[in-house]
């Protein structure tokens, strides 16, 4: 990595971060309601048959598959939350399908990594994750 790239926070190929992630939807109003009302993410704008959300600076693009090849489930996205037990309770209250109760997935040096899997309205598996400092 050259010094210019390093000072700009880039890799040597010029990549600075993830700007956007596409999530395939089969019912856009249903998916928009889920990401806005249940996950509580800010809806940025809609454009035709697409809806764009912000998640901490990364844009989520919801829309139909533009080719049959792309009509498959999403990658698992791991959303950070401060309190995974409370967030899990909230999802349950809102009727979200949970895969399994929150569990400790890896004890790291200074924290425990907790996760809980759930399904969005389109059947995609997603996860909440939380780094809980070790007492």
């Amino acid at each position, binding site marked *: 990595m050259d010094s210019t790239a390093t000072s700009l926070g880039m890799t040597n190929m010029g990549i600075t971060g*993830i700007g956007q992630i596409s999530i395939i939807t089969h019912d856009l109003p249903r998916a928009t309601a889920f990401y806005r009302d249940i996950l509580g993410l800010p809806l940025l704008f809609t454009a035709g048959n697409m809806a764009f959300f912000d998640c901490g600076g990364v844009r989520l693009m919801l829309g139909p598959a533009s080719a049959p090849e792309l009509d498959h489930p999403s*990658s698992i996205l791991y*959303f950070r939350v401060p309190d995974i037990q409370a967030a899990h309770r909230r999802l349950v209250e809102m009727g979200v399908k949970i895969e399994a109760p929150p569990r400790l997935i890896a004890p790291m040096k200074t924290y425990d990594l907790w996760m809980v899997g759930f399904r969005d309205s389109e059947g995609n598996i997603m996860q909440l994750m939380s780094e809980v400092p070790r007492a």
Partner: protein
Amino acid sequence: MDTRDGTKLSRIGQIAINAHDVDRATAFYRDVLGLPHLFRAGQLSFFDCGGVRLMLDKPEKPEFDHPSSILYFKVGDIRATHRRLMDAGAKFEDEPHVIAQMPKYDLWMTFFRDSENNLLALMSEVPRSS
């Protein structure tokens, strides 16, 4: 969710990317994309991309064995990065092109495949000179 308590979804911490050959995929994300390799844990290989962790993993179940979501990597100079990735052996689907004209900038994109045949993209917001 309520934004005043601990249930707020603050940001994306990690993204899972399916790989059928984790060694081959690790080489691609490290040597072609140039992302910092964080660590390896068995069949899991972790990278950093501007604070978001990418986890390369073999699909655990048939249900998970599908291509990745399209991840759009931000770059400053999309033409230069396109050339560098081509030189490094990445397979592109198209040339960098304007995909949307926003009020203050043109949004450029170009699409390519990783070693596992996942579709990925480069994106760049190029300020409009008036």
